[in-house]
């Protein structure tokens, strides 16, 4: 029971990463590797700031800014330096490792005994793990609403068009370079924010905490899409959040079933591969027809 709450809380916290990657991976249409560097960057900045006596709120905001700066550099390398996006991301990600070590003055900084969002008094009276549910839930709802509102604006629409069709966007007078830079900065800012929150939840920042997180973000996006089907843009944002929670449930089930943790990465890879193949499988096995029949029996 407790662990399900914990998974929901973790899912909500990590959903931020999914939403961030959704902006670049789904809307701008490219895989941004920078996140594996900006995630620990956000964590490093926040944790170091907190240990230096900065308030958690300010420190978390600094984590956001740090991530955004990382994204900005990737954006400039890609648009102005004409470096392919995958490479630009990898370059910034690699560079971030050294920056993180400089910021932290070592490879691991602990937060135990420091004031964080999670040590606030309100959470002491609540049952365990509700701290991550409330902080994760609050943040993700706020951020999703802000992004949904942003995408409604003229600027947001121009941003979407840039991802859909660069040529058309340019012929409409949209500066696609600026849009790409904006998208990367915003997305990586959110990744930095995710790093900031997760470091506070975990109680430490570590130089190696970015390894493999791109898979977690992709999992949220893909699981959300597969499970919830065709949706409007705003609904898709919510689907990413739910996808992130489902991914945590899957990990929990795998752990509860007593699988060796050595196999965990392989299992997540297999689950993702199945999710990615599902549309094809559905078509091949005519699952759609069967599903529709099932639904129509219960009346739409």
């Amino acid at each position, binding site marked *: *029971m*407790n*662990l*399900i*709450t*914990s*998974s*929901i809380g*973790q899912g909500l916290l*990590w959903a931020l990463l999914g939403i961030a990657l959704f902006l670049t991976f789904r809307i701008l249409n490219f895989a941004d590797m920078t996140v594996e560097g900006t995630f620990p960057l956000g964590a490093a900045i926040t944790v170091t700031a907190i240990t230096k006596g900065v308030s958690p709120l300010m420190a978390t905001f600094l984590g956001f800014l740090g991530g955004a700066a990382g994204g900005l550099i990737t954006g400039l390398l890609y648009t102005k330096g004409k470096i392919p996006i995958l490479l630009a991301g990898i370059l910034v990600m690699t560079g971030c*490792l*050294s920056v993180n*070590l400089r910021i932290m003055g*070592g*490879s*691991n900084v*602990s*937060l*135990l*005994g420091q004031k964080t969002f999670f040590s606030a008094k309100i959470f002491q009276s*609540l*049952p*365990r*793990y*509700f701290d991550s*549910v409330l902080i994760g839930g609050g943040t993700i709802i706020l951020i999703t609403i802000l992004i949904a509102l942003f995408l409604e604006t003229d600027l947001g629409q121009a941003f979407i068009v840039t991802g859909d069709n660069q040529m058309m966007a340019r012929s409409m007078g949209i500066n696609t370079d600026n849009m790409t830079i904006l998208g990367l900065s915003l997305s990586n800012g959110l990744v930095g924010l995710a790093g900031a929150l*997760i470091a506070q*939840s*975990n*109680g*430490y920042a*570590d*130089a*190696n*905490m970015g*390894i*493999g*997180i791109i898979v*977690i973000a992709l999992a949220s996006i893909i699981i959300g899409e597969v*499970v*919830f*089907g065709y*949706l409007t843009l705003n*609904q898709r944002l*919510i*689907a990413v959040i*739910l996808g992130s*929670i489902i991914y*945590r449930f899957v*990990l*929990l089930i795998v*752990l*509860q079933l007593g699988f060796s*943790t*050595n196999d*965990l*990465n392989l299992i997540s890879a297999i689950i993702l591969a199945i999710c990615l193949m599902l549309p094809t499988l559905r078509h091949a096995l005519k699952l759609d027809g069967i599903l529709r029949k099932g639904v129509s029996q219960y009346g739409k």
Partner: protein
Amino acid sequence: MKRMLAFISAILLFLGVDLVVAPKAASQTNQAAPKTEVVHVGILQMMTHPALDQIRQGVVAGLKEEGLTTGKNLKIDFLNAQGDQSNLKIMSQQLANKDSLLVGIATPAAQALANSAPKTTPIILAGISTPATSGLVKSEAHPGGNITGTSGLNPVTKQFELMHAVMPHAKKIGIIYTSSDHGGQTNAHAFARVVKQAGLIPKLYTISNTNDLQQVASQMVSQVDMVYAPQDNGVASAMKTLVNVANNVNIPVFPCAETMVPDGGLASYVISQKEMGRVAGVMAAKVLRGKNPATYPVATVKSGYYMINKKEMRKLHIKIPAAIMRAASQHGKVIK
């Protein structure tokens, strides 16, 4: 859209129920835990690695020594994060939920446990270099909370004395470690201080991962008289590369961990990882019987033994002082 709303309402409903029910459930399990005959101990390990695996085996041996045997009165829940820190949180919560005592192997694992477990659950550290600076305990002498255990500080002074005895004319000592490895960094800097105090020159080199080792090591061996390899996961796993580079220019490598001597290190004074785990296991058993971790000082395993690699001695034409050779063949290990 329907599916989505259904899922969201299910989650909200669950959270609502848990919010009302959970506090009761928690107090029930806490009361029941110490009365059961089978003790549940959770072990969280950062990654698979020879040294960390040995620590874990030691913990089990230490528990057994104190009369706690798996299958009889002990149930061990073991999870290994395989170096993926995003999984540490959920793993530590899972262990914190069902076990009455937790063992953390390597710093991030211990930190995750410390953060997830309620303050009433004791946590035993095994193989953490600096528990106090990692924020796990208030001080090593007076832990002050629910955490205590063994610290794996390397016997750097002893190791330096050995190096100096074998190579009395060497002036510059190269130290190479992975910049993102907390243990390696701590160990390297501690060793550098000892070298400086003795009036010799430590030269620190860092790699970001094992792929850099060949190049950085080549640079290093052209500037130093001998090499020290600290307790560093990266360097330990690529020890053979480092030895090859150093031996090409007839420079010996003095490692600090047991597994690194057979891999081509010349000689070392090592503390047994298994022994460190064993002490942690004994401490765990004593805490389970009621000893308070807050006043149970962190044990630093200091006594170790010499390990000498004769193959390397022949290859590099290096003589090791007779007294050390004798000590190694009597109480330590000599690799022929």
